[in-house]
């Protein structure tokens, strides 16, 4: 396994007084208001809240895909709010993996190629790529599917590939936006079990979910309403 359990507690990221807004009709519309959040390595956090409450927005901010307007964000002691775009991109490329509700696999690529894609972008050597992809196929039990296209897989299998792809660069943090939203309950349960196991292996996970049951897999729940923590 790639992940060693680290008994010593480390702070992974910290949000201090984060505000995010958009300008609409000459008026500020707040998407996030005064968010404070500390996440330690090895945590499994679930974000909950009604539709439109800002869950995805918060996840994107944490994932550095989206910016914010006020406040501070430290990720592994790096002040994200002062970093240049390029540096920020390197940071998430190295430490964060994303899992989406709609899987977002590339239709034109096979399972194997989909897994390989992030490695191409972080300049992993060809032999190492092969090894990592083989490992991953093995670990997630999808060796038999490696040459199929996404459209030939079930939703659960696609999400499995999505998670495998998110993990292939050995990130410290997995951000999952409603990873089971498109799955039936049995498939959803399997994904959650997988997350649990990954977490046990030391990966930090933040997931957005609507389901109490799924939220219970986590160690902590954060509730949002109208962009605010409650």
């Amino acid at each position, binding site marked *: 396994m790639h992940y060693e359990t680290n008994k010593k507690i480390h702070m992974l990221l910290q949000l201090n007084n984060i505000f995010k807004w958009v300008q609409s009709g000459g008026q500020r519309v707040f998407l996030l208001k005064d968010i404070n959040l500390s996440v330690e390595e090895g945590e499994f956090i679930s974000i909950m809240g009604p539709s439109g409450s800002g869950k995805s927005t918060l996840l994107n901010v944490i994932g550095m895909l989206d910016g914010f307007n006020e406040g501070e964000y430290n990720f592994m002691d790096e002040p994200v709010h002062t970093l240049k775009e390029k540096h920020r991109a390197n940071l998430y490329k190295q430490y964060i993996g994303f899992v989406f509700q709609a899987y977002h696999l590339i239709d034109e690529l096979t399972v194997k190629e989909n897994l390989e894609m992030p490695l191409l*972008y972080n300049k992993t050597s060809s032999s190492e790529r092969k090894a990592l992809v083989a490992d991953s196929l093995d670990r997630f039990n999808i060796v038999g599917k490696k040459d199929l296209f996404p*459209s030939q897989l079930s939703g659960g299998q696609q999400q499995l590939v999505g998670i495998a792809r998110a993990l292939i660069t050995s990130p410290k943090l997995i951000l999952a936006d409603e990873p089971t939203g498109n799955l039936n309950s049995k498939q959803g349960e399997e994904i959650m079990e997988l997350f649990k196991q990954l977490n046990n292996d030391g990966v930090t996970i933040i997931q957005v979910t609507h389901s109490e049951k799924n939220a219970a897999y986590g160690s902590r729940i954060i509730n949002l309403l109208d962009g605010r923590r409650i």
Partner: protein
Amino acid sequence: MNSQVLKTVLRSLGGKKFLSLTKVLGLIVGYAVFLFLAEKIQFEESYDTFWGSAENIYRVALDVTNKEGEELKSAKNFSGSSALLDAEIHGVVSHVNFGKDIVTVFNGPDQKIQDVDFAWSDPSFFEVFDRKILKSESKELLENIHGVTISQSFAKKLFGDENPLGKEISVNEGWTYVVDAVFEDIPAKSHIKIDMIGSYKTLFYYMQNFDNRAQVLIDNPDYEFNQPTPYETRRWGAPVEYRPYCYVKLKKGTSIASIKAMVTPLLKKVALPQNLKDSNINFLFQPVADIHLKSKLEHEISANGNEKQLLFLYIIIAVVLIVCIINFINLNTISAIESLKGFTIRVLNGSKHAQIFQIMLMESFVFNFFALAIAIPLAHGLVVSQLGLSQIGNSSLFIVLAIAGGITVLAAAIPFVSIVKNRIFGALKGGSNSIRQKWTGQKVTVTLQFVITIVLIVSTLGIYKQMNFMMDKELGFNGNKTIYSFTPMTMNQHPDIPNKLRTFKNEVLALSGVNSFSVSSSIPGKMPHRESNQVKEINSAEPYATSFNQISVDEGYINTYDIKLLAGSNLKNQSKWNSDEVLINKIAMEKMGYKDPNKAIGKVIVIGNKNYAIQGVMENYHHVSLHNTVQPTIYMQNLQWDHGVGYYSMQLTSNNITEITSQIAAIWENLYPKEEFIFNFSDSTFEKQYGRDQKFNKTLSVSTFLALLISCLGLLGVALFNTKKRIKEIGVRKVNGAKINEIIVMLNRDFIKWVVIAYIVACPISWYAIDKWLENFAYKTSISWWIYALAGVVAITIALLTVSWQSFKAAKNNPVNALRNE
């Protein structure tokens, strides 16, 4: 079609603004180019078709081979020719001759109009060429011995709105006429250009009765004009300068072959002069409507058109239209794919397939309609400004409407059948992969467009290189400080030509800015008109196998044009311009069988029955354009006054051109009063030989540009579609660590691949095209690799610029937007 269909269409166009703009631009260019070129082709092809019963009007041209074997094919003929046919052959309704002149017209002391097209002719002109007589003093046209007939537009130019009848005007040497009648203008689409007609009767009367010294006409009331009959020697003796253009009009249904067969027996009835009796005479009957495109004789009235060039115009029309149609259908397919979701929802809600097709048809129609609405006025402007027509012809409009109709249906039907029908079922059945295949189809069409475009780019560069090659090539003579003029017209009737010429020469050479002077029958840049295949060595019975050009020159020729002498010496300066010495060029020397120029010196050759001694051998220089090889030529010191002395050339040393030419003009006007000194630079005249090539080059460059433009629009449309389709993928890749430049490279790589394939296909095609075109030239540039390299770089750069803008926009996009769930 109901109003909802139209509304839907207009809304959907609004939603795809950029794609719509791309589509409509391509169509506008295509239709405008089509209309303009179609008009141009029609313009060229419809020369002289407007005359009443044009199919029965023939020009009687002359094909005569004398006993020395010199053949002359001339647009001019003896004045007896058409008259003889008219008199003897029942099928000939009427005939007319005219002699063409360019004159300066004076209307009182204040108004002077130069370069007026004048013709000496007969009243029967209007029997053959049916122009309406708009105003006339008397019933009998050209009856008044002082009268001339002028064209409507020329009357307007001279007298504005005043009544031109009875007005006095004078011409060149001071001959004064009264305007007798006004005729309807001859359209520009004619090989004949005449604004003023005087009768031969008037010509002979003035020649007899005009006192040159006093510059007045002494009227002679007893004068009677007796035109000799076509059987008399006088009608068959004129040197080529004085021969007219001869036309006959045949009775409907008369076969031209039967008339041709009668020429030889008829000529037996004529008292031909001795030189013609010894010659072989043929008449060439040219249908008047064929003259502009097909006639390539000596002494044409003006430079004619060119059938080959017309063929190129056809090809260009086809190419631009094909590029355009492909582009539109291609973009329309993309637009249909974009509308697919909407169509599917319609079908789910009970819409029939026919109704979907209706929407697509309507959309296609709106585009074509809109494009035509812009292209027609655009082409109209071009046709008016470039061709001088008043409007676009109905037939061109009709054809373009038919094409637009065809494209409307095709551009709706092809995407409907190939994509929409299948994909709607596919969508209902739950997904398919067909979009991937169709996608290849789009790229193939764009590739095809680029093949055409690259062929055009390579051809343009190749032609450009050849033009440069011709401009830079060492021609073997130097014309950049040499000016020339035609020999003075006024000398035509005067016996003192040699005396005046000598005076002119001496006075000009006395000027400090003039280096040398030459009189010759031809100059570099002008076709020599005489040729003989009966030249022989004095001791040989048989003539040389080669035909030799002959040019009459004086001793000043090689100095005036800086032509190098390889051996022997220049012609001697002698007073009569007539000696038995000749110069030959190097190729002539080789054809005569000498390897060493020195060996040829002093050898005697026989031309006709006169002996000539070879005085010198000159380097081969290019007397005419590089379309032709250097011809073996004999330069004879025998100015044949009746054969057209031709040109006065002067090499200048002074840098002050204005001053020196005004000094020369003063000498000229003193000797040849009433005639203006008009001069040209020899090198620019030489370059004028390439005018047609340059024009072709221009047409090709413009077409290349347009094809490139349309191809880029096509590419842009496909790029737009491509990035739109891949927007999610781009987002996923970015989230997984792809950088902006990596995304751009990924998006562009595909397109570049297709342009490269187009390039590989285009290279051999364009090589063939240039090779064909270069066959027109005896001296050709090599088609070097850099032309291909440059064309490739240009195509790829332009394709990259076109695509990169789209790619960059897509790559910059925040993946959060792309991946947000719908």
